[in-house]
């Protein structure tokens, strides 16, 4: 299958954002994924998020690994540079890209095979490095492109389409991310755009490592009645009400009114706010232990806890750790980078 471009013409009356751009300007080429694939819904949410946030698309870099999920960046933000790297290695490529230019927005897209198996090490270390990026896992519990093998996030209780049992326990990427020190950790569902959209917006605004595990059913290989990554199962077992979130952009006024004692406002680095409100016994998402407990308790009951699970307001990012200049390193002129012949004479003298 070859690259399919979308026609660039669009209706003149389409609404425009603050940059004068329409949603269409944030789209990519035609998706080549299966009809109904959860990944396409996440793609749509990313487009919506960037459009609503008035992000200049060329200031975003899309990075991915290999697999169905990693193809997705072709289908959004055609005005952004993208990099479809090698299997499981998106985190290292994004690390280098971010080191070179700290001013761009980095959206990394990966899958459950790409992140929880071949790229597990790279994932862990990107979290550990506090890389300032949004890391989205389009999680369907299986390997789509190679025709439906189990991935490491597939629940042990969830057999394959042919009925084979899954012999191994699942890796819970959200628990892992919290444990490794990710500053922003959320789980969502591709079938719940209302929840997903503010989470993506908040993740993009967050300075530090923002992790989004989005359950995204594979309609071809893992959407059967006994699968725990199917549309039906997730709809039935989604505890989305646990913690709800509104994303408030930097310039916007906070207008939503929540009942006393149930809401918390978290200010992000760029001046935007997260309005968190708890419903019945939800955990405080600033408490990492409580977050892990909520995920584990839910999983034991067979429910999928979604929403913002954990946020650390004060995370430093890799550049803070490295002490790099405020300017993007790729913009520092050679005259400042190359010490020149005079300094070299001094170095030679020391080696005599």
């Amino acid at each position, binding site marked *: 299958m070859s690259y399919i471009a979308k026609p660039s013409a669009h209706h003149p009356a389409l609404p425009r954002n603050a940059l004068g751009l329409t949603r269409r300007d944030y789209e990519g080429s035609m998706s080549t994924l299966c009809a109904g694939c959860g990944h396409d819904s996440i793609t749509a949410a990313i487009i919506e998020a960037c459009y609503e946030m008035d992000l200049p698309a060329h200031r975003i870099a899309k990075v991915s690994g290999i697999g169905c999920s990693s193809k997705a960046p072709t289908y959004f933000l055609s005005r952004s*540079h993208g990099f479809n790297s090698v299997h499981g290695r998106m985190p290292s490529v994004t*690390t280098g890209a971010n080191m070179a230019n700290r001013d761009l927005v980095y959206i990394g897209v990966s899958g459950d095979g790409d992140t929880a198996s071949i790229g597990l*090490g790279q994932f862990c270390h990107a979290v550990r490095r506090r890389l300032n990026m949004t890391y989205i896992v389009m999680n369907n519990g299986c390997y789509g492109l190679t025709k439906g093998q189990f991935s490491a996030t597939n629940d042990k209780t969830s057999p394959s389409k042919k009925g084979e049992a899954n012999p191994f326990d699942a890796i819970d990427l959200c628990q892992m991310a919290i444990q490794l020190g990710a500053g922003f950790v959320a789980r969502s569902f591709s079938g719940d755009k209302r929840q997903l959209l503010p989470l993506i917006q908040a993740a993009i605004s967050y300075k530090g490592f923002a992790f989004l595990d989005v359950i995204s059913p594979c309609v071809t290989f893992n959407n059967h009645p006994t699968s725990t990554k199917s549309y039906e199962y997730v709809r039935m077992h989604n505890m989305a009400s646990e913690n709800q979130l509104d994303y408030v952009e930097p310039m916007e006024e906070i207008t939503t009114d929540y009942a006393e004692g149930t809401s918390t406002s978290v200010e992000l680095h760029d001046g935007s706010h997260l309005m968190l409100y708890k419903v019945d016994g939800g955990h405080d998402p600033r408490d990492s232990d409580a977050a892990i407990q909520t995920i584990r308790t839910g999983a034991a009951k067979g429910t999928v806890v979604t929403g913002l699970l954990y946020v650390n307001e004060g995370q430093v990012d890799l550049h803070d750790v490295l002490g790099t*200049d405020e300017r993007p390193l790729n913009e520092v002129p*050679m005259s400042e980078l190359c010490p020149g012949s005079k300094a070299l004479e001094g170095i030679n003298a020391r080696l005599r």
Partner: protein
Amino acid sequence: MSGINDFVIKFATVNGSGSASANTMVAKTLFRMGIPVSPKNIFPSNIQGLPTWYEVRVSEAGYVARRDGIDFMVAMNPQTYAEDLAEVVPGGWLLYDSSMPRIWPRDDITLLPIPIAQICAKQWKDARQRQLFKNMVYVGALLELLSMDLEVLKGVIGDQLKGKEKLMAANLQAVDLGRDYAREHFQCPLPIRARHAESAKGKIMVTGNDAGGLAAVYAGATVCAWYPITPSTSLAEGFEKYARRLRVTKEGKRLYGIVQAEDELAAIGVAIGGAWNGARSFTATSGPGISLMSEFLGLAYFAEIPIVLFNIQRGGPSTGMPTRTGQPDIISCAFASHGDTKHVLLFPSNPTECFSMGAEAFDLAERLQTPVMVMSDLDIGMNDWITDPFGWDDAKAHDRGKVLSAEQLEAFKTAKGQPWGRYQDVDGDAIPYRTLPGTHPTMGAFFTRGTSHDENARYTEDGRIHQRVIDRIRRKFDTAAQIVPKPEIDIRDKNCRTGVIYFGANRPAVLEGLDELERAGVRLNAMRLKAFPFNEDVKAFCEAHDQIFVVEQNRDGQMRSLLITEADVPGTKLIATLSYDGMPMTAAFVRKAVLSRLHPEKAAAAE
């Protein structure tokens, strides 16, 4: 042969005993007396306890290859007494710690017993001092025996103890104890000894890894990612050391980023990400790291991303000999990664070239939009070399290659007569124009991928397009052949149809070997390769000679294979001349290999 300013001294010590810095002081003192030295650190893969050696060849004539036949052994390690004794040439000397009685089963050498442990035990109370100063006691004895300059030694010790000046007096006291003992008990100086000379004047003493790290600073590299592996580790550390000194703003902000990655895969991934985003980016590794980086190298090749990789080669296969040298990665680097790949390689032969070629590698990588590998090795990388000082031409701008600014993008179609496409060969040199993320709001964005793509970076499964694109990338190699460093050709006899091809760290051994052969009446022409792909000069040299010794440090003659497949040189005229025991090559090896082939009778007579 041995004599004044011409001898080999070897130190046999225990790893972790503090001997390394004392031994370096001896080498540095001789160097500062103006005498070329070539110290070789022969160390175990260990931090403490295993035997380690430090060999210093002293040669006023400037022959700095390793030389067999130890004139003077400092035998400080009982574990290796037997082999150390056996290595001393007849008529040579062996200095040892005679605190414990010891019988040496040889009567053709002179023993120099010094009760070093007893001297130290008498002088110092602290166990650590007693241990460390043992080294300085033998340094003191050597000073007298080899008539080294005390004032020069003091300067060297002073430099080494910068920041720890209060240790100076005790160190000098230990030196004095050694000197006094030697003067009282031995005939000083020995026939082999040092005297001030001129031939090392103006040179510097430095390791190739230090030079490579400095090269990356001068080349303007801002992203470095690496994973610790002997013998490349000190290159990344060298970069950090110099960057810390030379690349920090007045506000204390760093103009560089270094990440010690979780493995070699991540290290090269970081470099690729940085280079994709327009920062000069590099990594440093050794053999096993090359294996791990191979997949990513294919991506960088196919997606045309300019990274620099320093490969400090060591003995393989597998983990092999991590602390011994070799040139066994020629083929694996030239063709690293699956599919049709080929990479540009540079072969520095000393630290000066690690600096110049290391910096040039970044220009070549960005000009050619492809990975460039600097093929150093453990000998160049980790040993101190007496070498020409580093030079830098401030007037010469860094070549950043074909990267379009927003204005250039807008003007592209008018200027070039066709719209911009990431992989379009507009100039006929097979090198396309690239754009960096964030350059222009509506132009120049594309999707970088390792899957097959057309000239506009769009995914394709059309075999004709695929073939067209990889053919164009291959043609880029023709451009590369024209701009990589040319070989160094040494025609000693215009009529001679026999030649030698060599590269890298073998340079001193080959040059000395050729001199020795010339003295024996055998004159050969020589060519030192500096780069792959091979250019026309390489082919011309091969055509002009009927038989060519290809001297290299691996088992299978990898450079020879490359000359056959990539320069169409008939294999029948290329004589594999191979040394792969992990030790730096000697001139004797080269001389014997050539003689035994060309003049077996002379070879027999000479031995």
